[in-house]
């Protein structure tokens, strides 16, 4: 056999003057060089960009007359109305009453939801007895229970608190239960091998493992709590933010209505901040993706 092909250049590099052409190379840039001017802005400032833009847009639309004051008051009017409501003490006292309703509802619903989730999450007997019942009741839209609550509990504080507690309890139940059942069985087994008893396993392995789920449940239930508050207070309330809003509707005071909405939003934001802080403190062990 005659050699009619030359061997590949790579095997005889010294014979040729030109080095073999490799694939085109591209630099892998260090993460720091990816920081554009926007990325060097502090995060809290970046996070305020969206809301501030909306506010400016609203003011511009109001000032140019596109939004008539009857449809929606301008930010300036709303701010003045808010200042008035604060200075005459109406808003603080309404907020105190609403906050109290949410706190009591959260407490009752939270205790009930977590207790039920623990019973059905930790034991198979509890699961059989409780889970099916809760799952069935969960399909009833809780807002639809308002008429029944009014008949049962009257028009005082009780139906409002009950509504909040109900919404909270279901969310916490579902997420804590799922969290408990999502705990890694290998870790439970390791705990057994280390000599932990039943209560030790629950305390050191199952409950910490269910905490991420519980935090998700807490977030959902806080959102539900505000929603339930709005529903509850729009019916037969004689105090609280919802009452303030109903009163404003009768007088076509869109500025006061917006103030109340802003207060609701502000309270929701505050609750979210509390949960975020809790998560940062309690879930710092989690090896999860935190965004780039």
């Amino acid at each position, binding site marked *: 056999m005659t050699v009619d092909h030359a061997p590949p250049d790579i095997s005889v590099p010294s014979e040729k003057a030109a080095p073999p052409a490799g694939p085109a190379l591209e630099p892998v840039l260090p993460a720091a060089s990816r920081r554009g001017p926007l990325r060097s802005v502090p995060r809290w400032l970046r996070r305020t960009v969206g809301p501030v833009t909306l506010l400016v847009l609203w003011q511009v639309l109001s000032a140019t007359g596109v939004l008539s004051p009857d449809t929606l008051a301008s930010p300036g009017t709303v701010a003045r109305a808010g200042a008035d409501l604060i200075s005459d003490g109406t808003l603080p006292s309404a907020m105190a009453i609403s906050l109290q309703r949410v706190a009591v509802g959260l407490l009752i619903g939270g205790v009930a939801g977590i207790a039920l989730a623990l019973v059905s999450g930790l034991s198979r007997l509890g699961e059989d007895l409780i889970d099916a019942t809760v799952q069935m009741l969960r399909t009833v839209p809780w807002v639809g229970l308002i008429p029944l609550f009014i008949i049962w509990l009257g028009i005082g504080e009780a139906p409002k608190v009950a509504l909040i507690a109900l919404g909270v309890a279901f969310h916490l139940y579902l997420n804590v239960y799922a969290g408990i059942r999502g705990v890694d069985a*290998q*870790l439970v*087994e*390791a*705990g*057994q*091998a*280390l*000599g*932990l008893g039943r209560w*030790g396993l629950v305390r*050191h*392995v199952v409950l*910490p*493992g269910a*905490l991420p789920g519980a935090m998700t449940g807490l977030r959902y239930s806080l959102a539900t709590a505000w929603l339930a508050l709005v529903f509850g207070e729009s019916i037969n309330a004689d105090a609280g933010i919802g009452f303030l809003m109903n009163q404003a509707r009768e007088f076509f005071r869109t500025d006061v209505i917006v103030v109340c909405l802003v207060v609701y939003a502000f309270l929701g934001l505050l609750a979210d901040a509390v949960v975020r802080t809790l998560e940062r403190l309690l879930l*710092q*062990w*989690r*090896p999860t993706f935190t965004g780039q």
Partner: protein
Amino acid sequence: MATDLHRPVTTEATATEAVRVAGLTRAFDGRPVIDGLDLTLRAGEFTALLGRSGCGKSTLLRVLAGLDREIEGTVLVPKRRAVAFQAPRLMPWKRVWRNVLLGLPGKPERAVAESALEEVGLGHRSGAWPKTLSGGEAQRASLARALVREPDLLLLDEPFGALDALTRIKAQHLVAELWQRRGCAVLLVTHDVDEALLLADRVLVMRDGAIAHDTSVPLDRPRSVGTPGFAALRSRLLGELGVEQPAAAPASASASASAS
């Protein structure tokens, strides 16, 4: 290494027992994985349990650890026993030292955990979260967690299986050292014949749900694959595990083979 610290295999008549198993049967859905198994482990002895994948060796270890109680037969184990699993199984929500102390009776001080971590060369990581440990570090933390219980019986379920080759060699040395210092009985479940011969006084081969082969390893320590007699034992064990060896090839040439 101090070879005089471990008990020689020949004193078995006087040595006390660390484990006694008689007529042990464990079936999964009617299919016996362990079938009438008898086994005695002597106190202070390092035993390796070899077997093909799925032969029931991990099930046996779980039975000895008290994790699997769906059994028939007699199983006697010491009260103080500890397990190190293939995965470290550290609680991710507890810092390393709290993981080490987990399950210990009373309220032990952090110093107790730190001295155990020091022993495995991990004293500086005692306050770290498990997610920040490397694979080898996590496995050493798991070992410290087992040792802090001062076990009479240490059960190791392929503890080096998930480690890279270099880390594994270091971890094997560490286990040999710890065993010689502590003098507890060790049962090492593995599918690596070399690992078994490097570490153990006695090697068991499990087959068809019972101990099919039982041999002592009368090699001087420290050992290496080049130790005289190593190759012969190795090819005998591979034969017991059903691995065909090329007749002409010297056994030491294929030192990296394992019987998994």
